[in-house]
């Protein structure tokens, strides 16, 4: 057990992720987060968006992802699509405003990628941002981790 933890910590610092040993969800340091549990990775004007590890864990097994059309306009905080799990459809909201330039077509045949790889293979859309200033409305990894802890302690 101890050696697994040591390996996990070393792997974590190599990959620059935070690993909470109490079994909390993974939160990546370089991403920004919305309070509706979506993450965004910014590269210049391009934003890649998905849902977080915390979100996928609370959703259950994703069986369907509703993707927007390329070219659709998105607004910060507004819904752009949905995921279905355990007979529940949950809206997915965009953390930034802009235009959808790419969607992850893989999710149509492999929706479970959202569960198994929420930050990599399970990315949902890519957006060309029209207002990078909006990013200040989002949380960094530390704030988001605290936010998740607070939410989970409510019940």
């Amino acid at each position, binding site marked *: 057990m101890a050696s697994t933890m040591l390996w996990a910590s070393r792997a974590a610092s190599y990959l620059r992720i935070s690993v909470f040993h109490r079994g909390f969800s993974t939160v990546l340091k370089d991403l920004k987060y919305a309070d509706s549990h979506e993450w965004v990775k910014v590269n210049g004007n391009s934003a890649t968006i998905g849902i977080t590890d915390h979100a996928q864990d609370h959703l259950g*097994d994703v*069986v369907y992802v509703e993707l927007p059309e390329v070219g659709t306009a998105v607004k910060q905080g507004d819904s752009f699509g949905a995921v279905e*799990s355990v007979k529940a459809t*949950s809206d997915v909201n965009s953390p930034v405003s802009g235009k959808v330039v790419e969607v992850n077509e893989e999710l149509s045949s492999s929706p479970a990628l959202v569960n198994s790889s929420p930050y990599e293979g399970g990315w949902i859309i890519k957006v060309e941002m029209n207002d990078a200033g909006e990013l200040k409305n989002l949380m960094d990894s530390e704030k988001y981790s605290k936010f998740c802890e607070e939410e989970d302690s409510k019940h």
Partner: protein
Amino acid sequence: MRGPLKLEVWKMGFVNYLDALKLQEKLVSDRKLCRIPDTLLSLQHPPTYTLGKRRTDHNLLIPASELKNIGAELHYTQRGGDITFHGPHQAILYPIISLREIGLGARNYVEKLESTMIELSSLYGVKACAGQKGETGVWVGERKIGAIGVRISHGITSHGLAFNIDPDLKYFKHIVPCGITDKEVTSLRRETSTVLPSEEAIHEQLISCFSRLFGYNTVVWKENPSILSDHEEIA
């Protein structure tokens, strides 16, 4: 722990499916703006088939044009889940609640809806249980007694659960219920030897199980609930 939790219950009797859908949309919007507390609609529908967001209409086994002949409607919705049937003597609960305020995710919410129906069943000596992975719902052995289909938008729920008290099970023969081919549908009437009280009493028990499981410490009953909200005026 969180503060006192209030639930407002609307006992609505028979409601047409589309009217209920429009009402839910209005209530979701009101709940999101914190204009209303967590709200629970308790009702029944006339014979209605409904599909979820994935539009799995291949699971409707008769042509849509024939539905009128059997006295049923068909509606497409944004909820999760597959095709199902709603009708008289089936108790429906549509909770319009804020999952964010109580810190629940979709999975835990749905599990509590399952528990609500399991607890109700146990009041009549019926041993029901939650479905296996991928088969959300409530089962007595291999027979389905309760169905769930939910929508969550900005953390607010709509649609909900349907519990078979004593619906006409023949209606289920025209669909592959919930997309599961080899399992039967059943009802409380079929599964218990206990004499059933009035349906109103069973609806109240269902509401009671729900409010207890979700931890509501204040339950108020809305006076004269109607499809028209307090904000709308009759011209």
